[in-house]
């Protein structure tokens, strides 16, 4: 499971003309092809299309060899603003299972996926996790006055996110009964890993002085993170990045930084750093300095093939960045995750 990225499919791009001819062929023999595809469906690994990297990582960890996972929204892609390419559409069309985050994280694609289910089984992971919660209080609402908008950035709280493993396992087991035992074992192993990660994150963040526990980022992606690890969070933009930041947003954030004596603020990898830089400049004008503490992975994970391209590595990066910038001390890496660290040559 530690070499999970290797399984993200690389598609070969043939000559355009070949593709044009192939397309014509594809249209003319369309329905016989469908019948063919259905015939050998049960023997192949389950073709899963996941929307975000976080969701894909979960499915890869739990599904193991039973699944063949493609993530649509790679590193640096803001899910709120994602645009599909033809290849993505093709992959969605061939998928046996579509796993997405839900709660409107994926913008247009999410609202479409909410409505479907006939053609392909779908799983809204964050929404499924929410359904397992005993208390509604653990869910965070959007700041909007409209009812029913839930903050979709659930993965910020590692313990919450870990609950998804069993949901994913159950879904895969439903579709591939032969894999049922395998995925359940993998799920419980992954849950244990995430529990260790959560404990490490708690220990690390606890070292941040009480006065420094303010996390300011480009947009409101860290509410669950803040609730789980004891930070007051503020984003310049709202939960969705679709509306542009206003002058008042910048000013209020700058005022907050000055009042709370915040020593570092953070950019996000999927969002232009300009708003954070504007806050920094405004703070400087108010007579104090605020550092830019580094780039956090808010809505997407890091580049494939790097440690930050996995969920564990992404959380590790975020915690280390926040804790270091805000004057805390990072806790020792847990033994339960030493295998992961070795795989990525991290010690």
């Amino acid at each position, binding site marked *: 499971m530690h070499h999970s990225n290797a399984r993200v499919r690389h598609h070969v791009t043939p000559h355009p003309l070949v593709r044009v001819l192939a397309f014509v062929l594809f249209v003319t023999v369309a329905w016989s092809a469908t019948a063919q595809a259905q015939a050998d469906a049960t023997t192949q690994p389950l073709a899963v299309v996941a929307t975000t990297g976080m969701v894909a990582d979960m499915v890869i960890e739990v599904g193991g060899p039973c699944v063949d996972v493609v993530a649509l929204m790679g590193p640096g892609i803001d899910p709120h603003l994602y645009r599909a390419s033809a290849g993505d559409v093709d992959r969605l069309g061939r998928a046996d299972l579509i796993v997405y985050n839900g709660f409107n994280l994926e913008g247009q694609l999410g609202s479409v996926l909410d409505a479907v289910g006939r053609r392909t089984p779908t799983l809204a992971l964050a929404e499924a996790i929410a359904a397992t919660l005993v208390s509604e209080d653990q869910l965070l609402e959007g700041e909007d006055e409209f009812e029913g908008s839930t903050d979709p950035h659930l993965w910020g709280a590692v313990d919450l996110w870990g609950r998804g493993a069993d949901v994913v396992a159950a879904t895969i087991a439903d579709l591939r009964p032969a894999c049922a035992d395998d995925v359940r074992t993998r799920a419980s192993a992954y849950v244990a890993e995430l529990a260790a990660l959560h404990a490490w994150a708690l220990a690390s963040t606890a070292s941040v002085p009480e006065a420094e526990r303010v996390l300011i980022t480009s947009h409101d992606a860290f509410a669950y993170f803040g609730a789980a690890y004891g930070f007051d969070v503020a984003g310049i933009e709202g939960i969705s990045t679709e509306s542009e930041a206003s002058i008042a947003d910048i000013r209020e954030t700058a005022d907050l930084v000055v009042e709370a004596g915040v020593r570092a603020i953070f950019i996000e990898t999927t969002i232009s750093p*300009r708003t954070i830089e504007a806050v920094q400049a405004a703070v400087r004008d108010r007579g104090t300095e605020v550092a830019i503490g580094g780039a956090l992975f808010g809505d997407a994970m890091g580049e494939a093939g790097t440690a930050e391209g996995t969920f564990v590595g992404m959380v590790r990066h975020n915690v280390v960045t926040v804790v270091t910038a805000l004057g805390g001390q990072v806790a020792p890496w847990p033994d339960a995750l030493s295998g992961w660290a070795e795989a990525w040559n991290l010690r």
Partner: protein
Amino acid sequence: MELLALFSDFTVRTVAIGAALVGAVAGVLGSFALLRQQILLGDTLSHAALPGICLGFLIAGSRRLEPILAGALVSGALAALLVLLLTRTTRIKTDAALGVSLSLFFAFGTVLLTYLQRHAGAAQAGLDAFLFGQAAALVPRDLVVLAVVGGASLLVVVLGWKELKVTTFDADFARSLGRPVVLIEFVLTVLIALAVVIGLQLVGVILMVALVIAPAAAARQWARRLEGMVVLAAVFGAASGVVGALVSASYRGLSTGPVIVLVASAFVVVSLLLAPERGVAWQLMHALAQRRSLRAHRVLVDLYRLAQDHDDLDYASEQGMLDAYFGGPTGHVLRRLERRGLVSRAQHMPEEGTHWILTGDGRRQARELLTPFGERDAAVDGATP
């Protein structure tokens, strides 16, 4: 007062100054585009920036402002060239050429965006902000870029003022004077593209169109000379920027770009309504006065003709008959004419209704109305016994 207090805030000041710079430059260059009836070129240039932004990013490999602006400028210039090529060498008309150029460049831009999304990894994040505007995120460094680029284009306008002016008013005449008209047109197009490109990150594509058009259109209503129009457009543009920034700063959640555009549009509406001679309000009053005097003149003439028909210049016409002759009620018109001493009431038997007689002044004026160019005096008088 409260708005002024806002100005002391750093962010508000930065955005307001930036918006004022963009507004002023857009106003000046928009004036030329408006007069040359090339105003929608701004629309095309704004949309055509998208592939340039993507290519600038691809080539430079980073989100640095300069290469991206350069890319946007180049693709804008190419789009303008396409418009020129289509209109000059085929029978395609300007509007279609603009639309073709706009939509094709933008379509290619979206293709490039998805390509970058797949192939450029994390580095491409936030590229759309260049297109959809992020006024609030201006920092002093941006102001320097805006001031340098804007100042340079204004300098070009000032230095080439005479050439620009004569080309704008009459390109054929300019050509006959031996001016390099094609070069001047090219420079003007590049300047507009430049204004659009520096404004894009401030207000976004669609709203940049408004900033090119609105201040110029508002200024056009007031000014009689090109000089005045250009200066006024710059003032309107800058004022839209400042007021828009202040208003958007005073309410949370109001994006700056759209507010600036609405302020600029308000300048247009007010100018359309109030500007002397060109203003709608002025025109309405003028039209009303025209219609009123027209009615009065026609009643006078009708009275005069009825008198002539009866061979009696002091003939008293009954009001009901005048109504029929005129084709509508004439009472209020007659009363107004009476106040001006052009007609007077004749006392007849009460049950027959009011009768009206032309006074001496009234007769003179009616005769004048019937003989607008003098030559027919003799004819009319000759017919009068």
